[in-house]
């Protein structure tokens, strides 16, 4: 070809490599056919070949060699499975750097090699084997760097300690992750962007695993300064605080307002910096680039917020039209579909876009899952879902199936037990399984005859031990809904008016649970000054739970006849608002009838009787 009669200059070839790469990236979001996929990769292939050509044909300075190798290796890691080749290139560059006479000036280049070897490559290889090797090498490097005096080495040591923690997360070594983060945080300069970034990683990790978050980490999170960390990391901080509230089933209004105020002044920079990520500066020439596309990008962030809001309101879902989640879950769904369709190229690799779509897809799965849950609350049944759908996690699908079996009156003890024992189940699903399983077994104790009693009681106790252990280990203990559920289930199964066969217990246990009940009851009582008392015990408006607390409190703690009557009336009434609560409404109604009779309220007695007759008809006709 005529063009190549003469040689190209070195910078022409280098620019060609960039042109091929950037051109491919600019089309990364438009790939819709096999042909286009091939075109994309033929461009990437050419970019890699250009870099290789430069390395092979030219005499490069050590700096030039570094730059070219890093750019090429990035392509190899991101776009291909040729990880060994990438490793080979980095290792030989590292050797060249270390034997270079002015190696002291090349710290940044050497550290860059290490970062690729210990961070980027293992994460892409994603195997336990490679994580373990990388972790060992990383620890050695940290030790070596820590033995050097200069400030720059101290900072690099900090970077690689962070890399080590990342590897431990991948290896699921929870204890080492926690001590790793704590050690790292204690050595960071106070009020620095780096420290706050690490704290955000730490808190996000604890939330992902549902571990309790230490007070110090919460304080650090709260003290995160917008001016120091920049709007991206600050948005992450706000999102995490929102998730913390959500996991505690607490009100999120204040947090939404905080977001609103934040957007008032920072929306523009989130929109215009989209795709650039956030730069974290430890010191001159040590900078990390971080990107969390779901949080740093304005549209994605708004979508995630709406999802979190919807989930926060689901528990109130007993009005088909009025509930927030009914309106906004479909909106999150359609927005997410649009985001997938209009995903911007923004100069990143197709493979990076691909992993973003993975997250979008799990948002869609969450939307569908919570729509099923709304139906459970509205109608007391599980809408049959397409079995092909996996849901946000396999455990969620199994949980729905077990609940379906329980709704059908078949107990589901086996299903719940299997879920609770499986190592892959999250602590939250485990807890739901254990509590439902306990209810079924305690009901069986109540109905049982003498000979099977011992065995059934034994089973109940076993489940309860697991409940208590799990509560201690997880962040569920900070959520009043869980705490209250544990309290009322224990009392229901240990006291006469609630079961025919109370389980044995010690005086201390009884006193502990009674005092908790007192707190929950006084904070959530229907009549009188309901809602007074300690805010910690205030429950969200979960209808079934509210009824159960008031029924229990009304029967055990209340003495005033008028008050008791008002509460039983409200309990009886409110049950109708939620689907599938017939039997509970019946038990509550009988209590109300008794209160009406004792109070000699003739009219109420007749009215309640009539309502109960109708309810009995309804329940028996279903069976």
């Amino acid at each position, binding site marked *: 070809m005529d*063009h190549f009669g003469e040689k190209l200059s070195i910078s022409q070839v280098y620019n060609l490599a960039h042109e091929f790469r950037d*051109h491919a990236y600019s089309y990364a979001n438009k790939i819709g056919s096999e042909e286009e996929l*091939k075109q994309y990769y033929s461009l990437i292939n050419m970019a890699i070949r250009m870099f290789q050509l430069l390395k092979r044909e030219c005499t490069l300075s050590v700096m030039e060699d570094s730059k070219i190798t890093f750019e090429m290796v990035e392509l190899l890691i991101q776009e291909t499975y040729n990880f060994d080749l990438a490793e080979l290139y980095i290792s030989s560059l590292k050797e060249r750097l270390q034997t270079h006479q002015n190696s002291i000036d090349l710290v940044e280049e050497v550290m860059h090699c290490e970062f690729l070897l210990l961070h980027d490559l293992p994460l892409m290889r994603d195997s336990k084997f490679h994580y373990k090797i990388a972790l060992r090498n990383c620890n050695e490097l940290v030790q070596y760097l820590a033995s050097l005096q200069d400030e720059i080495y101290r900072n690099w040591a900090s970077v690689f300690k962070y890399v080590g923690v990342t590897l431990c997360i991948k290896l699921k070594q929870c204890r080492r992750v926690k001590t790793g983060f704590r050690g790292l945080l204690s050595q960071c300069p106070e009020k620095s962007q780096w420290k706050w970034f690490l704290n955000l990683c730490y808190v996000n990790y604890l939330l992902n695993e549902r571990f309790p978050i230490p007070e110090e980490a919460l304080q650090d999170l709260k003290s995160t300064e917008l001016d120091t960390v920049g709007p991206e990391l600050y948005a992450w901080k706000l999102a995490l605080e929102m998730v913390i509230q959500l996991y505690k089933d607490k009100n999120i209004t204040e947090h939404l307002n905080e977001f609103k105020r934040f957007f008032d002044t920072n929306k523009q920079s989130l929109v215009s910096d989209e795709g650039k990520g956030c730069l974290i500066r430890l010191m001159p020439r040590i900078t990390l680039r971080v990107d969390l*596309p779901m949080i740093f990008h304005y549209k994605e962030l708004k979508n995630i917020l709406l999802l979190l809001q919807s989930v926060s309101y689901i528990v109130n879902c007993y009005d088909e039209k009025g509930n927030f989640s009914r309106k906004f879950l479909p909106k999150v769904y359609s927005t997410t579909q649009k985001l997938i369709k209009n995903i911007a190229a923004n100069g990143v690799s197709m493979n990076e876009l691909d992993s973003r779509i993975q997250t979008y897809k799990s948002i869609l799965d969450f939307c569908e899952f919570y729509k099923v849950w709304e139906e459970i609350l509205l109608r007391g049944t599980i809408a049959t879902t397409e079995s092909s759908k996996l849901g946000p996690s396999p455990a969620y699908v199994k949980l729905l199936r077990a609940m379906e079996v329980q709704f059908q009156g078949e107990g589901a003890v086996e299903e719940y037990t299997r879920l609770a024992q499986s190592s892959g189940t*999250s602590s*939250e699903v485990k807890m739901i399984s254990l509590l439902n399983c306990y209810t079924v077994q305690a009901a069986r104790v109540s109905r049982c005859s003498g000979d099977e009693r011992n065995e059934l009681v034994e089973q109940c106790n076993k489940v309860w031990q697991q409940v208590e252990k799990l509560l201690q280990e997880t962040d569920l203990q900070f959520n009043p809904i869980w705490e209250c559920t544990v309290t009322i289930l224990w009392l229901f199964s240990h006291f006469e008016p609630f079961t025919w066969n109370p389980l044995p217990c010690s005086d201390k246990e009884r006193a502990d649970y009674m005092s908790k009940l007192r707190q929950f009851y006084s904070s959530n009582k229907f009549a009188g000054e309901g809602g007074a008392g300690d805010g910690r015990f205030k429950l969200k408006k979960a209808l*079934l739970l509210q009824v159960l607390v008031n029924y229990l409190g009304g029967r055990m703690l209340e003495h005033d006849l008028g008050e008791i009557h008002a509460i039983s009336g409200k309990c009886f009434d409110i049950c109708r608002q939620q689907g599938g609560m017939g*039997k509970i409404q019946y038990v509550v109604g009988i209590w109300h009838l008794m209160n009406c009779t004792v109070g000699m309220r003739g009219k109420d007695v007749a009215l309640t009787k009539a309502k109960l007759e109708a309810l009995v008809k309804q329940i028996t006709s279903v069976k």
Partner: protein
Amino acid sequence: MSYPGEDTGIPRRIIEALEDQPLSYLIPKDGLASLVNAPTTVSLPFDRTVFTSDDDCRGVDVNRLSTAVSINNDAEQTKLVFKRPSNFTLSTNSVDHTPSNFLKGLSPLAQSVLSAHKESFDSDNIEKKREIVHEVQQ
């Protein structure tokens, strides 16, 4: 005194009434925190610039792109195996998909280099992760 439902099997004790009523207000929320930080990418930028000097007289013969097979460069002979995306909806998009020509917009130089050295590029070079793992294990 009689009461409604007395002679039916409807449970009278609350614990029994709960037997076929899962505690549906316990709504699982696991995984929502991971939506916040997945995927996170952390990288180390290397922003030194190279090849900026105009009087750099080093030249490269691009024709050697395909011809050069030097013995000490085994690495470069390695066949590159590209990643097949798992979420890009290749098939579902195709209904209303207007194929674009990715090569449009490339500079004349890039176009001629590409057409002169385009390797026979087929789908075999683009594989799913599982296939790769399998291959390595064999």
